[in-house]
């Protein structure tokens, strides 16, 4: 499909040929186009890593911040201007490693943002060390005898934190990934989409084929409002389910702050209320 408004034209993309990031980029542009999102109302927020370069490759506002720190600015941007569509997108190392604390607390906060994680089970940009989602035994230049840590399970953790929307997709399957992304972006509140992404250079274990062989889609028998069932699905390891695991609609962080209860204007459009400030200052004159 035509995704013209997001196209950057002839640019140099720093990803390796064949990388799973390409289909994700393409799918994301399609999802955004189908949702008729205006690039001028879209802010992409990312950290540092190969995946985190994605904002440079589609036309939109972006905040390409520090490694591991996409979620705090994304939360703040949405809170300051709720009119914007905010997507926080990065790699698995960025979001679950360096950024792990923001990941868990952002879920608790529930801002209305979409959190897309390129899960290639490796640190790409720094040349192939283990990421939190690397499989046990995966050998790397640092994990010479193979990974000894238990892989991080982002879905199970998100469900444990009662996240508002939890899904997993596979970069190799653009069709379904697009639908999942659309649902996630439309969802009000925090939405996690962990996307399996083959890294053709540093991860010779979890390839396109491997993912194909190890996944299946949740079907209608799965009730995404059932937290325990969602958790059970998230802990499966033989074959890894894809789709929307868990949906739990609730009010968003921006709403809960009550900053927009009486005044719909984004914070960035408001001025000092001199009268109110003067009144507050006055209270320090009156002994009280």
């Amino acid at each position, binding site marked *: 499909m035509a995704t013209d408004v997001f196209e950057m034209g002839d640019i140099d993309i*720093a990803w390796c040929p064949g990388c799973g990031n390409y289909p994700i980029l393409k799918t994301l542009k399609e999802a955004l186009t189908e949702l008729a999102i205006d*690039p*001028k*109302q879209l*802010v992409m*927020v990312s950290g*540092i890593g190969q995946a985190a*370069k994605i*904002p*440079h490759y589609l*036309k*939109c*506002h*972006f*905040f*390409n*911040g*520090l490694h591991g*720190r996409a*979620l*705090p*600015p*994304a*939360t*703040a*941007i949405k*809170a*300051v*201007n709720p*009119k*914007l569509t905010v997507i926080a997108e990065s790699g698995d190392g960025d979001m679950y490693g360096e950024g792990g*604390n*923001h990941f*868990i*607390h952002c879920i608790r906060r529930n801002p209305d943002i979409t959190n897309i994680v390129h899960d290639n089970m490796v640190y790409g940009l720094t040349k192939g060390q283990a990421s939190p989602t690397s499989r046990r035994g995966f050998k790397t230049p640092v994990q010479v005898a193979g990974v000894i840590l238990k892989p991080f399970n982002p879905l199970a953790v998100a469900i444990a934190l009662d996240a508002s929307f939890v899904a997993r997709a596979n970069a190799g399957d653009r069709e379904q990934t697009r639908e999942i992304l659309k649902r996630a972006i439309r969802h009000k509140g925090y939405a996690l989409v962990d996307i399996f992404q083959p890294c053709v250079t540093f991860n010779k274990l979890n390839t396109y084929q491997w993912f194909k062989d190890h996944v299946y889609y949740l079907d209608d028998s799965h009730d995404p409002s059932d937290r325990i069932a969602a958790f059970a699905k998230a802990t499966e390891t033989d074959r890894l389910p894809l789709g929307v695991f868990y949906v739990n609609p609730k009010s968003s962080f921006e709403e809960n*702050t*009550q*900053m927009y209860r009486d*005044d719909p204007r*984004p*914070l*960035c*459009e*408001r*001025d*000092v*209320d*001199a009268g*109110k*400030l*003067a009144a*507050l*200052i006055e209270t*320090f*004159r009156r*002994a*009280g």
Partner: protein
Amino acid sequence: MRGTQQAAKKQDVSIVLCGQAGQGVQTVEHLVTRILKAAGYHVFATKEYMSRVRGGANSTTIRVCGRRVAAPVSRMDILVPLNEGAVAHVAERLSPETVLVGEREVVGDDDVESHRFLAVPFTQIASDIGGKIYSNVVAVGAIAGLLGLDLDAVVAYVRRFFAKKTDDIVANNVKAVQAGYDAVGRLDVPDGLKLTFKPSPKVADEMLLSGAEAVGLGAIAGGCNFVSSYPMSPSTNVLTFLAQHGLEQGVLAEQAEDEIAAVNMAIGAAYAGARALVTTSGGGFALMTEGVSLAGMLECPVVIHLAQRPGPATGLPTRTEQADLELALYAGHGEFPRILFAPGTLEQAFYLTQRAFNLADKHQVPAFILTDEYLIDSYYNFKGFDLSKTKAERHIVKTTRDYRRYELTKNGISPRGIPGYGDGLVAVDSDEHDEEGHITEDLNVRVAMVDKRLAKGEALRKDVVRPELIGPKNYKRLVICWGSTYHIVREALAEMGRTDTAMLHYSQVYPLHPSTADLIRKARRTVVVEGNATGQFRKLIRLHAGVDVDEALVKYDGLGFTVEDVVEGLTEIGNR
């Protein structure tokens, strides 16, 4: 010493309250200072307290004066110990003239013998009225009595203070304050304690607030509408203040999961167009240094309130120090400009915080407010803030289609757009980037961008606040200080009365005002007074003004300087 003390006492009484954490020392402090101010007396209060919630020993020093007062003294004219151990806690400050007021058992036989003691059985009186809980208010009454305040006014204030409580409670508190007042009336009170100087009705209309409140109000006046922080003494008070008034004043106050989240949220908020603040201390700030560097790289205006406390590491969480100057100056990897304010007065805390928001916005740099526990927790009355002198100046442009966030300009400042305002796209990147904000490995662009960022230093230097020179223009000796010690050094010099000595106070410590070298060279002898062990501001002067200050008077025991500390220290240096 004694001469000084007697002279001072004429129009200057210092009252020290000491008790355990959780015992209500703060209630007594609150009531006494407000009653005094309402009665038209100049008042100052500061406290020192332990990092614990109950127990230990904390104290508050209140001064009441016939002239403006804004600095602590070591001297105790009246000591009100509220628990056993209290007298020991402040023993070094006891003098033969100190009058101890309170319960015999609390003071202890030794001190009752060796000092002037006025027995007021706070607890007993309180119990008789309705419960031990009233003993603090009995103490308030006793202090009011000692100072010879008008009882009706005192009672009226107590009534007002407890207005929201049940009638019973109000009545008991009134009884308590009266009983304390009366108990003192029955005693043989040393003459010197009664306030003889005339109160001024104007004082009653002045403001009385703390450093934390001054910073908080300054932030609001500076247009702050977003604060994200993680609790850490002593910076938390600013977060609390803004949270408490957030809904009414339009400030989104968010407690972040950690300091890293706090600073990155603030930078994100600023990117989106908010006026963003973080407030932090010590180790919390250390965790933010990567974020400071990000603000430098993105050229994102963010204001950082750093309330200093003694380190290293956890150090002394509730104490004061001026030892994070160098940290703030060099925080963050790589090279980029910044602004450091260090307010010395409550007025400066307000106006400079406000200014920090404007300058951060104008120059697109991180701006720091360096305070410390002493300033944050101190109160005094003063005329007030003039809102007509403040303005939240915004420097945001509406973007056009061809907008480039990092357009190369001569002064290094690129017009700043925000997402959703105009037709352009606003792209920022923590990597080295081109004018559009896209990641680059073009090393010529790199050089241009470094030059652009550093070029702002020039404009920043034009906006530097001039240091305040107090005293004779033709000084031979110059006492230099910065930040919270303003009033302390000022009073010390006034007390020393040397006509050859001036004081030079910096409320902006970086960039350093260009007059510095000349002002220092003019003096025959110079000394820096600062609250750290290694003389950090002295080093900063050497580095950035290229002149050496002769001496340093430093203190790093966790308590701030008192007027006497400075007098003694300078005298000793002068005699060398």
